[in-house]
């Protein structure tokens, strides 16, 4: 039975993404100081991202699985290259300049790592053997460590999380999971020791932002004021005083949710959350109806990772998580992360479009 749709697109997901992009443009118009050129640039990026999504949807999952080790391997090499350039150039380096655009290997690994983990685990029966698990952990850990060294803790966490979700979905025994949890908790102080001062400060600030109202606490305080003062109905589009008067830092990128919460209130924010849950729900549905384990693991991981982005960003802006540089997916201004996300959605669509073709 051929359920193939036009260009392998999944329309329920597609419509939700288009709607989300519209919302993004609406709030960017306000957050960007009612500047049309900001909209134009973001709109162009969106179009490009949709084109990439459609392109990704054309690649069958088997092909993707075949290429996975190569993509992953190339990604690791590029991460090493970037680090080397950074060492030579004596400064933090995250991207490679390709002339036309700047290319971030870490961004590729947001897809590369879950793909690799899914590939590794799907080659043998599930749940994975301890040996497989160790190999998988190394496959996740190496790129994550390389990204930490850039240093970009936020992205490293996101990349690692995508891989960890694959492990979780692969059916790893609960007791092993619990054991890993204990190990992680034991390692936390060690990680703390290796964190940069500014990173420590961000964590500490979370617990008491008022301790340093003009320094690292400023972002959180101002964002909370913005969201809180928005109330149930919001101050109205382009009417948020916190947003319009520059009190919210990074207001069109990482902190755009504060603008949203201030201007559209609890109602607007709830609608946004609803739309996100719809997209994630659709992703999970695609994962559950996928027919081979590579597709299942990858689709599940991509959907949960997408949720993870949303949660980390909104949690940070509303003051329940430390400040890490994670944009609000699909809404924040900026192209790189959007392209990656949309490529992910392309993969989801491809998986969904071809789900029966393999099993029958």
């Amino acid at each position, binding site marked *: 039975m051929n359920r193939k749709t036009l260009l392998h697109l999944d329309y329920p997901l597609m419509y939700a993404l288009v709607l989300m992009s519209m919302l993004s443009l609406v709030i960017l118009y306000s957050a960007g100081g009612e500047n049309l050129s900001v909209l134009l640039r973001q709109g162009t990026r969106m179009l490009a991202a949709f084109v990439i999504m459609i392109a990704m949807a054309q690649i069958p999952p088997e092909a993707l699985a075949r290429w996975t080790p190569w993509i992953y391997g190339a990604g690791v090499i590029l991460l090493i290259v970037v680090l080397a350039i950074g060492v030579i150039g004596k400064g933090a380096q995250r991207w490679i300049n390709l002339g036309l655009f700047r290319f971030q290997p870490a961004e590729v690994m947001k897809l590369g790592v879950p793909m690799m983990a899914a590939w590794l685990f799907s080659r*043998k*029966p*599930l*749940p994975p053997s301890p040996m497989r698990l160790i190999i998988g952990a190394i496959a996740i850990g190496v790129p994550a460590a390389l990204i930490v060294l850039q240093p970009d803790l936020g992205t490293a966490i996101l990349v690692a999380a995508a891989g960890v*979700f694959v492990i*979780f*979905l692969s*059916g790893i025994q609960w007791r092993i999971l619990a054991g890993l949890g204990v190990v992680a908790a034991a390692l936390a102080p060690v990680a703390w020791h290796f964190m940069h001062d500014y990173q420590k400060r961000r964590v500490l600030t979370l617990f008491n932002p008022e301790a340093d109202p003009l320094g690292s606490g400023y972002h959180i305080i*101002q964002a*909370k*004021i*913005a*969201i*809180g*003062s*928005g*109330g*149930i109905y919001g101050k109205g589009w382009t009417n948020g*005083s*916190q947003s319009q*008067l*520059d*009190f919210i830092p990074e207001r069109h990128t990482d902190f755009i949710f504060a603008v949203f*919460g201030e201007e559209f*209130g*609890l109602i607007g*924010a*709830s609608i946004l*959350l609803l739309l*996100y*849950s719809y997209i*994630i*729900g659709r992703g*999970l549905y695609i*994962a*559950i109806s996928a027919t081979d*384990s590579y597709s*299942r*693991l990858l689709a*599940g991981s991509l959907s*949960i990772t997408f*949720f993870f982005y949303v*949660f980390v960003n*909104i*949690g940070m802006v*509303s*003051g*329940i998580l430390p400040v890490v540089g994670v944009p609000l997916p699909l809404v924040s201004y900026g192209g790189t992360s959007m392209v990656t996300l949309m490529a992910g959605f392309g993969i989801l669509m491809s998986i969904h479009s071809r789900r029966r073709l393999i099993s029958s």
Partner: protein
Amino acid sequence: MSHESIRDVARESRVFRNRLIVSSFIVAFLFLLLLARLVYLQVLDHRHFSTLSERNRITVVPIPPARGLIYDRNGVLLAQNFSVFTLEIVPDQVEDMDELLRGLSYIVELSDYDIKRFNKRRSQRPGFESILLRTHLSDEEAARFSVNQHRFPGAELKARLQRHYPLGRLTAHVVGYVGRISDRDISNMDPQVYQSRYRGSEYIGKTGVERSYEEILHGVPGYEQVETNAHGRKLRVIRTLKPTPGKNLYLNIDVRLQQKGEEALGEFNGAVVAIDPATGGVLALVSKPSYDPNPFINGIGFKPYAALRDSPDRPLVNRALNGRYPPGSTIKPFMALAGLDEGVNRYATTYCPGYFRLGNARHKYRCWKKSGHGAMNVSRAVTESCDVYFYTLAHKLGIDTLHREMTSFGFGQKTEIDLPSESSGLYPSREWKRKVRKQVWYPGETVIAGIGQGFILVTPLQLANATAAIVHNGLQYKPRVVFAIQDPITGEVEKLKPEVLRKAENTRAKDYEFVRNAMHNVVHGRGGTARRIAVGAKYEMAGKTGTAQVVGVAQGARYNEKALAKKYWDHGLFISFAPFADPKIAVAVVAEHGRHGGSGAAPVARAVMDAYLLTPEQLQAEEAAKAEKQENAQ
């Protein structure tokens, strides 16, 4: 895919499905957590965050009121405001203060003093208030800053009203000056008044009228509610409450008299106080030397201040209010009034052999006239200033009676003038001596008190006010420098009512007329000690000379050889009123080291009275006559 056969596909699928369901629950739970957080922020704590947001958005900026102007009685401007460019900084809006100051120093001139002052004030005021860095920017500096302003967030060019005293030293001791509000000013003020009236104010009256009428001159500040962005940039004004400007003052002072008094003192230091006897209005209040009050407004530098403070001439001391001089013979008309009040017969005479002896004691209290005046009645004793008559009188009345009578003319008492910190002078008593000197009163001290020597110290202001009391049959008003208060908006003028200070013990008009006649003779009569000043006068006057043997104000001043000789010269004093028939002005003059009242001080009084009483034409004629006389002398 050969190994596919050994996989339990169904089980894998079931496990995966379970994991996905667990994930979905976790996702749903975390979504609800976010939602709960939003409800907490946006519903439960909404009011709190709304307040914070408004406070972020809206800044209340005080607008200082324009200070009231000060005019003399003829409308001559004595204190004005003019606009100057100032460079101010709001510290809260500055990220790196050192960097900012360094940057600014390339654009405008910044002295170490400017920076020191700025840092001091920065430590005292809240960070959101604008703090002065430089004042009196030149047009060029202001323009240069304006062009570069974007490079200096937190720094602002402002046009501030700046006080200025156009007549400078001529009125410094009357008008006083304003200065920057100090910690002491703040602690002296009711905190509520400070909060409501001085936020945004830079200056406060420090001395003179500026201080005593501070409340009236200052005005009430207005407020501007402005919307500001996170960088403190003013975006728009939401509401403005205009400031109420301070009220204008018209003084009783006539700067022409002020000028004449100062000129006429010539090389002498000293003081001139002229009072309108009918109201207590102070027509002139000269203290020489004076100082320029303008540098004090923004804080005079240490060196020029030290120069003023340490000058042997003590220019900062207001001699009219705080100079304490022995009155010498100028006390005699008051002694005469006291005597008459105590029943002395106006025709009874005392023989003056040129000295007075207390009982059988050996010590001779000398009369200034060595050969003696012969038989003296009270009237002639005043006119010829016979010391022996007043030695005798003082001895007869005793110190207790004298103290009661003389303090009723205001000696040893404050005049309650509307200027800050006047001295009360001193009229001694037994009690005073016991308390302060821890000694009993000696009769000899009573004797010399009769001629205004000994412990007695008076201020020129007290002398002038007491002289006005002679004109007014013993009625004394509180001397008033301020004549009227004008509302600058409506233009309405409210005249201040004269206030009675006290009545002298002697209330008999006849006695006063008698003493006034004796004082008339001092100037116009035979044997009068100030006859020289009557020459060419267009009106009749009355007066009394005095000579004080003690070094007054200059006590404790630094010695220098040139001043040393002069230091021992007597002070010349003169009190007078005119025109005799209907006195309009009472004057007291102290010419330090002026040697004698008749020569040093009396011409000063004449000049002041001329300036007040003569028409401009008459004055001109007077000047011409004087110039001619000088030519002839040459």
